[in-house]
């Protein structure tokens, strides 16, 4: 293969950014591409793929790929496998990069130089970008760029990703490379192979030698990180601070989002009302209002929560706190077989499992990530609250027990606790019994603290929000339409007295499933309500209103409470609550799991195991309650 001019294939030149985790690679990517980027998954793997494009000052249109951070091409996680395979040009469906830009944190060169030496063996045109060069200068780290370049045999460019002018040199090099000038390390044949431990040692010694020659250690070392760590990593104070941050985050997700969520809900309701007033009554109107608007609205309403949550997550990540949180929580999470990093996604799932599952991207190891995704929906999300509230206020007497505690509050607390405990238990079973064998080591760099960059934050939140809206507009929309179809077809016959849903496929399925759910104390009305409840958990409240022919849906909750109080036994009500703790009553969550894992297998496993758990829990609850004489 000849690589005389690196960009000789005629198409838009392709650049791949490679580097250690936390080296500011994403900031550089954002600086280069601006908003012209898209986030997706690599084909067949759960790894996030970030691609963008830009035009150089010299007028060349360049495509950039931001590869997952790694310390070595010797891949250890699916993320790092992607990096290795793309760099080696053997990732199926991914074009070979014309130029590798290795991004280094100029304040922390030791490990990245070893990566550069490894990348050199790949034999592709290579360039080293010394990012955060300003911070290094500020600390008094003196880097002899020419010497470094000469010793490595790789061109070196200083960059400052957070400043507008910080990428000028890099862009000049790319332009020159595009014109075929020798400004990048010339491509040679690939001699890379997986290094042995001895080879890693040897490369490390070589990197050490180059550092001694070209880099003068800092005269003003970073004392802030040390000082902050004495507090933030203190065994007791650190945990308390972590809990405070989480409490604040949780509060913000619930309270700050509420007004905007109400606004979005009102907007969709208004749109529905307008369509109801304009279109004639019929199938099409029902599809648009009950299917599309109600379905998409029930998902888009979570957008404010997702934006707030990701603002916090990205802030904490950019600040360098996330590895510390994982450090503090590792022992506690490890007891259940989960990785320390699973903590934040699981906490987010209390608001909604969808952002929680999206946040599992902070977990590198595939099995750890899958285990976290699989238990995230067991956390009591906010959509369960309307259902819990309805049943508790209809059936649990409003009195105090033990002098101080409201019985209703205690039941609510018990439902939350049941969710948490079952999540830990399921994770334990998955990691200790199903995926037995090697325990993924907890081994990670604690990067220096950095002041988060506003532009980076906005960009990060925007890409997540965009990805979420795209999902709501495609997969989730499709699922909502299918659920609408099941609950509306075939329509009620002429002169029907019962609600139309009785005659639909959902109604038929409800009647047909009746013998199955009889042992757990459900009647057919409940089963029918659970089917549209798949769209979103709280829809079941409205659906119960529909099947019991109580007008007004959610607005008329007290009438529904009376009806339920008369027609359900206490055992049935408790069984219904137990069902709601576990049941996968959320098509959007299953849709997100499908998107995030890129396969139908995981949502199916999730559906089956959660339904089984729900059934067993309801069965036990119903029979215990019945034996206590509450039937």
């Amino acid at each position, binding site marked *: 293969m000849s690589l005389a001019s690196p960009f000789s294939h005629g198409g838009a030149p392709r650049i791949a950014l490679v580097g250690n985790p936390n080296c500011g690679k994403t900031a550089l990517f954002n600086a280069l591409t601006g908003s012209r980027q898209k986030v997706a998954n690599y084909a067949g793997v759960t790894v996030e793929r970030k691609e963008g494009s830009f035009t150089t000052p010299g007028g060349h249109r360049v495509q950039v790929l931001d590869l997952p951070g790694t*310390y*070595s091409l*010797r891949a*250890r996680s699916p993320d790092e496998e992607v990096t290795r395979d793309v760099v080696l040009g053997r990732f199926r469906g991914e074009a070979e990069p014309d130029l590798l830009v290795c991004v280094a944190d100029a304040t*922390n060169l*030791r*490990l990245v130089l*070893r990566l550069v030496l490894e990348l050199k063996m790949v034999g592709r045109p290579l360039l080293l970008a010394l990012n955060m060069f300003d911070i290094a200068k500020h600390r008094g780290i003196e880097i*002899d760029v020419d*010497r470094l370049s000469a010793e490595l045999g790789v061109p070196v460019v200083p960059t400052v990703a957070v400043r507008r002018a910080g990428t000028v040199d890099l862009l000049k090099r790319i332009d020159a490379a595009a014109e075929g000038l020798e400004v990048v390390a010339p491509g040679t044949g690939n001699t890379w192979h997986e*290094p*042995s*431990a001895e080879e*890693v*040692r040897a490369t*490390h*010694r070589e990197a*050490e*030698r180059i550092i*001694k*020659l070209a880099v003068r*250690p800092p005269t003003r*070392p970073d004392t802030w*990180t*040390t000082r902050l*760590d004495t507090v933030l*990593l*203190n*065994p*007791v104070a650190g*945990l308390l601070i972590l809990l405070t941050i989480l409490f604040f985050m949780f509060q913000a997700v619930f309270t700050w989002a509420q007004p905007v969520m109400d606004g979005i809900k009102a907007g969709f309701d208004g749109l529905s009302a307008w369509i109801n007033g304009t279109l004639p009554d019929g199938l099409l109107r029902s599809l648009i209002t009950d299917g599309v608007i109600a379905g998409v609205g029930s998902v888009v309403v979570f957008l404010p929560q997702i934006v707030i949550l990701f603002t916090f997550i990205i802030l904490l990540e950019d600040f360098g706190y996330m*590895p510390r949180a*994982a*450090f*503090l929580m*590792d*022992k*506690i999470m490890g007891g259940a077989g989960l990785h320390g990093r699973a903590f934040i996604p699981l906490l987010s799932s209390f608001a909604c499992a969808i952002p929680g599952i999206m946040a599992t991207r902070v977990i590198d190891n595939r099995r750890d990530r899958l285990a976290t995704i699989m238990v995230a929906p067991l956390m009591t999300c906010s959509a369960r609250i309307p259902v819990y509230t309805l049943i508790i206020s209809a059936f649990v007497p409003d009195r105090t027990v033990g002098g101080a505690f409201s019985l209703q509050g205690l039941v609510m607390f018990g439902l939350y606790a049941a969710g948490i405990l079952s999540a830990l238990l399921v994770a334990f079973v998955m990691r200790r019994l199903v995926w*037995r*064998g*090697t*325990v*993924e*080591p*907890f*081994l*990670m*760099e*604690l*990067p220096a603290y950095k002041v988060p960059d506003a532009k980076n934050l906005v960009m990060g939140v925007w890409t997540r929000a965009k990805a979420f809206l795209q999902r709501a507009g495609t997969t989730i929309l499709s699922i909502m339409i299918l659920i609408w179809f099941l609950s509306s077809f075939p329509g009620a016959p002429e002169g029907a007295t019962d609600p139309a849903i009785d005659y639909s496929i959902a109604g038929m399925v409800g009647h047909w499933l009746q013998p199955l759910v009889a042992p757990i104390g459900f009647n057919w009305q409940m089963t029918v309500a659970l089917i549209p409840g798949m769209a979103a958990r709280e829809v079941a409240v409205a659906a119960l209103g529909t099947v019991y022919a109580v007008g007004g849906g959610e607005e008329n909750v007290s009438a529904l409470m009376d009806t339920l109080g008369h027609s359900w036994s206490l055992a049935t009500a408790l069984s219904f609550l137990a069902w709601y703790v576990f049941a996968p009553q959320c098509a959007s969550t299953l849709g997100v799991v499908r998107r995030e894992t890129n396969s139908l297998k995981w949502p199916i496993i999730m559906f089956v195991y959660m339904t089984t758990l729900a059934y067993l829990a309801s069965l036990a609850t119903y029979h215990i309650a019945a034996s206590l004489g509450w039937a």
Partner: protein
Amino acid sequence: MHISSRPAAAPAVPDTGRTTLPADARPLSRAAKGEVGRVVRVGLDGVIHDSLNPEELERRLLEIGFVEGARVEILHEGLFGRDPIAVRVDDMRVALRRREAEAILITRWQPDGASPAGAALHVIAEDTRP
């Protein structure tokens, strides 16, 4: 799950032949907060570890900066079982569990680097800038 199969009769620190280990060498996993040491050996020399296969663990530790000759200092410990630990490795910080730290042998830190490995490093690393 693998159980560490180190025979009870063997010395806590098996001599590997690769390097002669100093008498006071001991695993990083037993170090307490505030302790400073120099890495003398990374890897378990084939002893089975319940985390990963020994070769893989050795390479991962090397890749994150635990190399022979590196200066290590225990900066912080977790609340439960004093696990995991935050370690300063030369000029960076790394968090790891004591389970993995078992594979790193350290000796007391001597600033002049009097040990053979340290001395060798120094010869290579001499600053030759004008």
